Each structure stands twice: as structure tokens, then as C-alpha cells.
């Protein structure tokens, strides 16, 4: 990394303002001048010694006291060199504008729209800078600015669909939507005069049986063929990032459950790992094993859910019920482990909440004995079915190059032949102590992504089995009294523990003043938490890099030219969950 930083400083002496190297967390951030962003970004993307081809996320932080109020943070990632870099640029309040990097990383389009929506920073050169999570006509400002109250501005009373007694009912109109409102969803700006074409705009969702939640997509159709597909997100936006700024670190864990509600454990894990990285604490070995086992159980649950819904989207009904049968067994085990089935809230900062009992280990082993047979059973229904192959092969193809450029991760990226799995690249938990493989596809079509997820379920079962065999004895939560509440029996007996307990539960744990990005391989892809801490008990800024949101950025690219029926399979192949996408 050092040579690259030096190159950067000599090549762009006026652009690079400062370099902050965080050796404890092995992270480097480079502060650059906002007006030089494009040239630095272009260099970092293209130069053979840099090759930051993957844009993980774009985040924005508000520092109201500073002269240059807003900070835009680009989280770059280099797949070939396996390293990460943060680019930071400040923009002033009176003219919060910065150049758009959509020309360098295609995935930046949605990420920049989110920054614009949340922080009000405009990106010059952005092709379609509209609000993305908030409603299009939202006129109350930019929610993630520090001067925006967390409880909102009483906007709820103005929702025009909530009937109010003192108002006359709104006149219902059946008239056609004005043409200018449709323009955002059209592929071409103006209809070509020479040849008259009749494209149909079809509004799919947010109420639709198979959009996997409240997702709305506006399709421009030529017959049944898709000319343009415009996702309209934000129907499930709950402002988790804003909420987090008002919560102590421990209180945020339940909120992460509700991000990807199908795989709550994976979100818990990603979040507590980010906080632990911030705090710099190490986790006892048994806890690491349990975390890995539970994360892989969750991966199986998530993939079973995905398989069922994807099959249902394509019309194979039975697979859905069969996968739910196995999912139920795993959910029962979760219930045994932590009392909940869906929103689990099981991981703790520094460890886990409760220990595996021998009975649970036995049940899990029994499940693992039968599970490969069950996977074969699903395969028997679809894997060699001509209709299934016809519906998945060569559908929604995305090349490796495009997948990287759009910032895809997880099975979507691996389906295109890029063996990027954080569990292997930046091992955490005990993934480096067990033997397993990363399945990689070739063609980048729906079938490859299907195959990868099937194979991942088998690999997960393999990981769990090895972990169960190696499971050591010991504590399940780290011993770091100033951050982690000491056990109750100590609190009752010794003074120091009581003091720590009192401080943590009255004030919350206070991490050092720092910022960190921590990525975890969730079943859907790279789930990252970027936390900026100002040394207080609450995060100054918490940014969630959710794979579903980033994948939706590639939706139009993947959908164009396919048929309406394929749209549904693309939702399925992303394994999209709106709770995570809209946050």
C-alpha cells in the first residue's frame, strides 16, 4: 500500500491533501481536493499498480461546524490486489457539488443518488440524479444532515393518502398520467419522429405477488420485451442509518435484524464485527466457532428461502414447500438457541448471547446428516428439468467486467466467474481453520447463480460439520470490561464489575475516535458497515452497504432485451430483500 500512496502523492501533489493510515485496523484513507476527484479516481481505477476496480460504497458525513461541511467518502476495493482504500473529499455547504464518478464505476449511479437523497450533495455529470429512497416530491430537506431532527418534521400529517376529517375528499381522476412524469422511465428522451413506436409503460409493484416485497419497477415494454426497467426504491425506507445516530452501539443490533429479515444472523454478525473492529477487541475461540456455525446455518436458511422463491417465480411450486420444510428445522434450532425465529438478535459485541447446548449440537448433526439428501431432492425437481434450464440459462447475463463495475458481490459476482468471497479473501470467524471451497460460475447467467447457491448450501453444511467437530470449550463472550458488560454473577460480587456494568448501561460503551469499514459475506453479498465514531457512546455516522441496493443498480443493465417473465427471475437471482435494500 505504501508505494501506491507515494505514487499518488507525487503524481497528484495538489489533489492529495493528506493521508491517514490506521495501522491498528489496517485501513488507509486519502483526503483529496474535491475538484480533483475525477483524475485521482480515474488513476486509482486504471493504473496497473492500483486497480481499484470495485466501488464498495459511497458514504457522506456531515460536520456542521466545519467550513467544508460535507464529506463524501468513497470506499474503494481492489479485487486483484485484495485491498481497500478510502477516498475522502470535502464540499462546502453553500455549493455542495462534486463530480460524478459514474463514468468510472457504473455502480456509482445508485450510490450517488442515495448520497444526494440523504445529504443533498449534487453530483455533476450524473445521468439521472433524482431522489431514490425518499419520495420524489419530498420537500423537507435531506434527512441525514445533522440539523434534520431524527423524529422528522411532522410530515406524516401531510401524507395525502391518510384521510383527514377536516378536508374535503380528493377528487379521483381517471385521466392519463402527464407525459413529463413518464419521462424518467423512458429509454429515449423524445420519440423518434421518423418511425412511430408504441411502447407500453407497465408499472410493476409495489403491490405485486412476486416483487419480493415492496419493490416497484417501471418497465418500458416493446411487446413483451423490455426496453428499459427503472427500479423505484424506498417503499420500505425506515431511516435505520439516521436512527442509529441516536442509539447506543448495543441498541443498534436489533435494528440490524430488520435489514435483511430473511438472514438476521448475518446482519447481526456484520454489525458486531464492525463495532469490534472499531473497539479493537478479540473474541474467545468458542464464540468465534459458534458465530461461524450460526452464520452458516443462516446462510443455508437464506439460500433455502431464495431457492423456494426463485422456483416459485419460475412457476415450480413444490420446491418452495420442500425448502420451507428444511428451513423450519433450522428455525426451530434458532428458537432453541436464542428464543426467536426470524429477528434473532443473537450476536453480541464481543461474542454471542447464549451457548450451544449438547442437545442442540446433536440436533444440528442429525440435520446435517440428512441435508445433502434434501438438496439432491430439490435438484431432482429442477436441476435437469428442461423448462428450468430454458428459463435460467442465458437469462440475465452479466459479464464479469460489468458485474465488477456495478459493484456486485456475493453469488451475483461469483456467477460471472469472479472468485470474490470475503470469507476467503479477508477471513474472519474460523473460516480459515476449516476446509471449504468457493463455487464460481462461468457465464454469469441465472443458472450459474442458481448453481452457486446450491453449492454454497453444501459447502455451508461442510463448514458447520467441521466447526462442530472442532468446537472448543471456553467462554462465549470477550473479557473487555470497559466495552462489554461483565457477567451478572461478577456484578453482584465485585465492585469493579459493578462500576463497569453501571457505566455501560447508563452511558453506553464509548469506542475510540476513529472510523472503520468492515465487510462481511452475507448470503446476498458483501454486507458492510462503515462507522464513524466521535468518541461518544453513539455512532456519529453509520452507513450500511447493503448488497441488494447495489445490485438493484445493475437491474436495468441486466433486464434490457429480456421478456417480462425474465424480470421476475432477475429479482429472484439477486435474492433481493427490500428491508435491506431500502434500510
Amino acid at each position, binding site marked *: 500500500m505504501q508505494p501506491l500512496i507515494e505514487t499518488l502523492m507525487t503524481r497528484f501533489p495538489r489533489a492529495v491533501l493528506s493521508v491517514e493510515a490506521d495501522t491498528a485496523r489496517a485501513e488507509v484513507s486519502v483526503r483529496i481536493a474535491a475538484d480533483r476527484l475525477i483524475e485521482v479516481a480515474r488513476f486509482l481505477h486504471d493504473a496497473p499498480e492500483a486497480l481499484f476496480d470495485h466501488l464498495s460504497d459511497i458514504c457522506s458525513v456531515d460536520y456542521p461546524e466545519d467550513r467544508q461541511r460535507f464529506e463524501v467518502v468513497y470506499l474503494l476495493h481492489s479485487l486483484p490486489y485484495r485491498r481497500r482504500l478510502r477516498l475522502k473529499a470535502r464540499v462546502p455547504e453553500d455549493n455542495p457539488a462534486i463530480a460524478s464518478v459514474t463514468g468510472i464505476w457504473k455502480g456509482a449511479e445508485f450510490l450517488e443518488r442515495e448520497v444526494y437523497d440523504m445529504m443533498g450533495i449534487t453530483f455533476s455529470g450524473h445521468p439521472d440524479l433524482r431522489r431514490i429512497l425518499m419520495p420524489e416530491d419530498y420537500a423537507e430537506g435531506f434527512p441525514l444532515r445533522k440539523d434534520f431532527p431524527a423524529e422528522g418534521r411532522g410530515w406524516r400529517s401531510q401524507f395525502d393518502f391518510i384521510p383527514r376529517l377536516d378536508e374535503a375528499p380528493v377528487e379521483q381522476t381517471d385521466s392519463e398520467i402527464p407525459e413529463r412524469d413518464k419521462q424518467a422511465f423512458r429509454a429515449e428522451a423524445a420519440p423518434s419522429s421518423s418511425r412511430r413506436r408504441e411502447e407500453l409503460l407497465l408499472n410493476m409493484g409495489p403491490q405485486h405477488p412476486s416483487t419480493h416485497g415492496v419493490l416497484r419497477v417501471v418497465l418500458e415494454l416493446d411487446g*413483451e420485451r423490455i426496453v428499459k426497467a427503472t427500479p423505484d426504491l424506498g417503499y420500505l425506507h425506515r431511516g435505520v442509518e439516521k436512527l442509529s445516530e441516536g442509539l447506543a452501539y448495543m441498541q443498534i443490533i436489533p435494528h440490524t435484524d430488520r435489514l435483511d429479515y430473511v438472514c438476521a444472523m448475518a446482519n447481526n454478525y456484520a454489525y458486531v464485527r464492525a463495532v469490534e473492529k472499531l473497539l479493537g477487541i478479540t473474541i474467545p475461540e468458542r464464540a468465534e466457532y459458534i458465530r461461524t456455525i450460526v452464520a452458516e446455518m443462516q446462510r443455508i436458511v437464506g439460500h433455502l428461502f431464495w431457492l423456494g422463491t426463485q422456483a416459485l417465480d419460475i412457476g415450480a411450486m413444490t420446491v418452495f414447500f420442500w425448502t420451507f420444510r428444511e428451513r423450519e428445522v433450522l428455525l426451530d434450532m434458532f428458537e432453541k438457541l436464542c428464543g426467536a425465529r426470524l429477528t434473532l438478535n443473537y450476536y453480541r459485541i464481543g461474542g454471542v448471547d447464549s451457548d450451544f447446548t449438547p442437545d442442540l449440537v446433536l440436533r444440528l448433526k442429525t440435520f446435517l446428516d440428512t441435508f445433502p439428501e434434501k438438496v439432491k431432492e430439490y435438484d431432482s425437481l429442477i436441476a435437469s428439468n428442461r423448462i428450468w434450464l430454458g428459463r435460467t440459462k442465458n437469462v440475465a447475463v452479466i459479464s464479469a467486467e460489468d458485474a465488477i463495475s456495478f459493484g456486485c458481490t456475493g453469488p451475483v459476482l461469483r456467477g460471472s466467474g469472479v472468485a470474490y468471497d470475503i470469507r476467503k479473501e479477508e477471513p474472519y470467524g474460523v473460516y480459515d481453520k476449516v476446509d471449504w471451497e468457493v463455487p464460481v460460475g462461468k457465464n454469469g447467467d441465472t443458472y450459474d447463480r442458481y448453481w452457486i447457491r446450491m453449492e454454497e448450501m453444501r459447502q455451508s453444511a461442510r463448514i458447520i460439520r467441521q466447526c462442530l467437530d472442532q468446537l472448543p470449550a471456553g467462554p462465549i463472550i470477550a473479557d473487555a470490561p470497559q466495552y462489554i458488560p461483565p457477567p451478572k454473577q461478577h456484578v453482584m460480587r465485585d465492585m469493579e464489575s459493578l462500576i463497569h456494568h453501571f457505566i455501560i448501561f447508563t452511558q453506553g460503551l464509548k469506542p475510540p475516535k476513529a472510523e472503520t469499514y468492515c465487510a462481511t459475506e452475507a448470503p446476498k453479498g458483501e454486507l458492510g458497515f462503515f462507522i464513524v465514531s466521535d468518541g461518544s457512546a453513539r455512532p456519529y455516522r453509520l452507513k450500511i452497504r447493503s448488497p441488494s441496493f447495489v445490485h438493484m443498480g445493475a437491474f436495468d443493465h441486466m433486464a434490457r432485451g429480456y*421478456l417480462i417473465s425474465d424480470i421476475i427471475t432477475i429479482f429472484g437471482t439477486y435474492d433481493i430483500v427490500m428491508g435491506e435494500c431500502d434500510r
Partner: protein
Amino acid sequence: MTELSLRLAVSLAQIAAVMGVVMLTVMILTLAERKVLGWMQDRMGPMEVGPYGILQPIADGLKLFFKEDIVPAGANKFMFSLAPILAMVPALIGFAVIPFGPSNKFELFGITVEPFVISDINIGILYILAFASIGAYGIILGGWASNSKYSLLGGLRSAAQVISYELNVGLAIVGVLILAGSLSLVKITEAQSGGFWHWYVFALPAPQIFAFVVYVISAVAETNRVPFDLPEAESELVAGFFTEYSGMRFAFFFIAEYANMVLVSCVAAAMFLGGWNAPYPGTILEHVGLGQFAWAENIAWFTVKAYLFLFLFFWLRATLPRLRYDQLMKFGWKVMLPIALGNIVVTSIAVYLFPR
């Protein structure tokens, strides 16, 4: 009391009986489908209404009957109301020419009554095909009149699908017509008596096995069932052409779909599987000396064949994913049609070389 009014009375009685049986079958089917699917999918199916849920169809019917009838804004009210009727009537009218049992004629007040077929017209199968095509209008009109884009797409898909697969159904049975030398379903069935080796699906000199397969697949497509349920593809078009329908109008479409299933099953049984003929020569009841009740055995065989066919519909639904629109078209025109045409050529040559 003229002969004409007597004929009318007899016909009406027959129609009432057949309609009763068909409606009962439809009711049984709605439950049977859910039960069979349930068992195949490791669940119970309906269990709440009555013992093992057997009263579920009645509850469903009552619910649909009392539901609010909604006509969407901007819909063409006349067409919107006409469409379900146009879908249902052709589905039911086809049963007029299906022979459910042997043609035991008897005299009643001087007129001849054929108890197991309402009307033995000499172009029976043509009549069924003609009315089945009209059924497609119901779907198309329903999709168009709803003033909804999903319905419209469903209706358009249906138009394309029905036209493509009607053709295959028609061509698939031409082989049978060549062998039987008649368009009357009664004559076709009678020609297949004397054991299962006389059924047209196996019969020499030209076994219609390929035609049978083409017929089965095309029949599934024509009735809009999985894997060809594109007009109502739930995961894409919400409910396709009947997205906007509710209450009794929806029930009409629903009944039409199931009645169509029963109809194509009956036609398949009559055309390819020997109709009411037992798979062995004669009937057992005849052999044991109860010849006057042989019709019961014949009707039982017909029922078994039709129900086996209906079971196949459920089985397909539990097993297969849905085809895509372009794949459906390709399959119909590039695979089914050549097979059906080839079958006609082979059958004609065989019949010419080995005349019976």
C-alpha cells in the same frame, strides 16, 4: 303432447344430468387439486371445512357468490360482463357430444333415447374444437375489457397460445379420424372396442402414441394449465386476464377452466384410450351374466380414464416450472406441429398400405 316436446323433455333431462355431473366434477376437482398438491408438497391441503376439508368447494362457492362484484373504472362494462359467459358456455357445451357409456338405445313413448350421449352428431369432434376456439374469445375479451395492462398482456398471450395449440390439437386427432373414418365420437369410441390393443393409442397399423403425446401437451396448453399457464402467470402478470375480476364473474372463469380440463380429459379418453371400453374384451359383468348392468362398468372405465387424465394435470402442476412466452411459441410451432404433421403422413401411409 307431441313428439317434439317429448324429445325436448328428454334432452333437457339429459342436459341437466350431464351438467350436474360436470359441475360436481368441477367441485371435486377444486378440492382434489388442492389435496393432491398438498400431499405432493408435504402438507395437508384444506382441512378446516368439514371432515378432511371435503366441504371446502361449497364454502369457496358461497364465498365467491357473496363477494362484491367490482367493475374497474374505465372498463367496457358490456364486454367485461360478456367475457366470463363467453368463456364458460363453450366449455360446457362441448359435453353434448361426449359418449359417457355404451350406446344402449331404448324406446320411450315412441322415440329413441340414447341415455349416455346427449346428441350423437356426425361431426362431434369438429363441434368440440369449434366451440373450444370460441372459449378463447372470452379470455381475450376479458383481458381487453378490464382496462388493465396486466389483463391485456394476459389476454394477448392467451390469444397467441390458443391459436398455436388449437392447431396442434386439431392435427393430433387427424390420425385418429383417419383410422376411424368418422368424426362422430360415438363411432370413434365404438371402433376401439375389444381390449386395450384396439385403442387408437396402441392400435395397429398406426399406433397414435405420438399424436397422443402431442394431444396431451397441447390440451394442457389449451386449458392454460401449468406449465403453460402464461395467460394467468401469477408471478408475472398478477392473475393475467382475470386480474380485475371478482365474485361470480371470477367464478365463471374458474369453472370454465376446470370444465375445460374435464372436457379435454373426456375427449382424450374417447379418442385415444377407448372411451368407455374396458381394457379387456367385453365387460366382466357380461361374463358373469349381468349383461344388463354392463353399462355401469363401461361408465366406470370412462370415469377412471378421465380422472387419470385430470390427475396428470395436478401432477404437472406440482412438478414443472412455467415456460416463457417465446419458448412456448417455439415449442408449439417447431416441435409439436412437425410431430403432428409427421404423424398424419405416417398414419395415412400405414392405412393405405394395410387397409382393414
